[in-house]
């Protein structure tokens, strides 16, 4: 086994992070997505007839309003988790393809191992995702602190700091799982077009997550919800949904986290092999069978 250099991983990570953090697309997504979400929540409130112009609010309405805003808060958190898993995975894939297409990789490989490059890339883009999420959390906290509506929504949801801790945990675990796979897809093919079929396959579990979300939210302890929140590919969002609105037994969340970690370890191992071979392959689009062979001989 080749010795891995922390400095090399750090350099690769630093480049991934710094070239993107000040980019227009990062700033746009960081500030436009929350603005969009706020608009979705706020604009309907103005379109509805104003409650206190007609009559003073009564408890049942407030309970209903609380449920609605709690549901919106849950939806927002899940949406953010969901979107960032996919969009940052795709950034990792594009970054691999860029290096492969421009042949920068051949120079990098003189001085760094494939494993170091892959680790640096995943961690660098992951750092970017984390910064974005932290900015969003900061903006959310600011919103809650500065407006009475915000405080009311927070009170209605009963979210404690635990909601954020679990969010970060599932965000990080989900990102590691998906980014490793996106990394392998980027390395195996020569262009985004070629990679499309496999990107689609990677998106399928995310789509399944989206489709399972509302059944899970309405019956968080049903058998399908429990299974869905255990399968590593759908676990990050589904288990998080269960944690947010219900209280799954501790052994289930622990088992889920343990299985996620185990599958991350397996995915990284397999994907690193595909990456190692794939980045030097140019020309013909490899078949699934060829890729399987790379896993064996890498």
């Amino acid at each position, binding site marked *: 086994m080749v010795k891995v250099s922390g400095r*090399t991983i750090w350099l690769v990570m630093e480049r991934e992070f710094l070239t993107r953090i000040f980019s227009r697309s990062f700033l746009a997504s960081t500030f436009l997505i929350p603005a969009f979400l706020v608009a979705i929540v706020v604009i309907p409130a103005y379109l509805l007839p104003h409650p206190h112009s007609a009559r003073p609010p009564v408890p049942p309405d407030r309970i209903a309003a609380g449920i609605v805003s709690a549901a919106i808060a849950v939806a927002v958190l899940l949406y953010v988790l969901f979107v960032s898993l996919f969009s940052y995975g795709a950034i990792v894939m594009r970054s691999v393809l860029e290096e492969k297409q421009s042949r920068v990789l051949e120079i990098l490989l*003189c*001085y760094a*191992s494939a494993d170091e490059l892959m680790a640096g890339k995943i961690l660098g883009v992951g750092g970017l995702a984390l910064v974005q999420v932290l900015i969003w959390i900061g903006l959310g906290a600011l919103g809650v602190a500065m407006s009475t509506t915000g405080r009311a929504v927070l009170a209605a949801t009963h979210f404690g700091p635990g909601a954020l801790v679990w969010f970060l945990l599932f965000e990080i675990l989900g990102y590691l799982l998906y980014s490793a796979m996106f990394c392998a897809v980027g390395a195996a093919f020569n262009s985004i077009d070629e990679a499309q079929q496999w990107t689609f396959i990677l998106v399928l579990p995310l789509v399944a997550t989206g489709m399972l979300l509302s059944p899970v939210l309405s019956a968080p302890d049903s058998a399908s919800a429990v299974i869905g929140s255990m399968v590593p590919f759908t676990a990050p969002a589904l288990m998080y949904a269960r944690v947010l609105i219900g209280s799954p037994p501790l052994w289930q969340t622990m088992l889920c986290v343990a299985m996620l970690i185990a599958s991350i370890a397996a995915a990284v191992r397999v994907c690193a092999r595909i990456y190692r071979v794939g980045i*030097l392959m140019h020309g013909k689009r490899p078949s699934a069978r060829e890729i399987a062979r790379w896993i064996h001989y890498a």
Partner: protein
Amino acid sequence: MSAGVELVGVRKSFDGVVAVDDLSLTIPTGAIFGLLGPNGAGKTTAIRMLIGILLPDSGEVRIFGAPVRRDVTRRIGYLPEERGLYRRMTVEDNLVFIGRLAGLAARDARARALKWARRMEIDRWMASRIEELSKGMQQKVQFIAALIHEPDFVVMDEPFSGLDPINVNELNEILLDLKRSGRTILLSTHRMDQAERLCDEICLVNRGRGVLSGPIRQIRSANGRCTLRIEIEGDLASLARFPGVECFIDRGNHADIILCAGADSQDLLRRAMRLGRVVRFELREPSLEDVFVTVVGERNG
């Protein structure tokens, strides 16, 4: 000259297709070594094994006596065949990143990037993105990326492609400068004229195997067939029966003769002098290109 860089009986196949087969070459320290051959001959695979990107299936690679490891590959500077830079990063950021990856401290990388950029006259473009530069300028940046950490072993895969004649000359100067400062240089190229001008030794690769290797002059005289143009006041045709003549073309007043490999042109001259007064005796040495075409043509035809 001590053995600087060596491939010893190296073999590499991909999915059963042999790319390099039992290839051995020795690049003396301080020499410019040409790796020549047609497309698909296995040059790039050989280079990738030399710089540690690929591991050979069998055989050995030694760089300055040591197996290829990280501490050794940091002494290598590599210019890939196709341009390898981050298109959306600036010239300076590209160079500093690669320099640091090759082991330099950030400050040294910056200073050296600037020094080289001045020498190559692209320092005005340090803050421009790669995609904004012309092909020739991008190639200069690529050059600096290969040389920024002052490598002892410089590997350049097709460095002349896409360069105008002025830049080619500039590049030649730099390569000769590197040689004078004791660096070992491997040059892979199709351009025989450049190889002929620059290289001390060459290895001709065809279908994954080393076909010819050695000092350039030796290869030319051992494999090339000299073309002779001869004119005598006497019977030209009888020269055709001379044992070393492979091909005799009677052109009326004079004749063109191609000698067999190894035949001595001076023997032919003595013979011609016995036939009559020699008016013209012109010896044209084979170019590397002639050798290349003959050897590769014979084996592939």
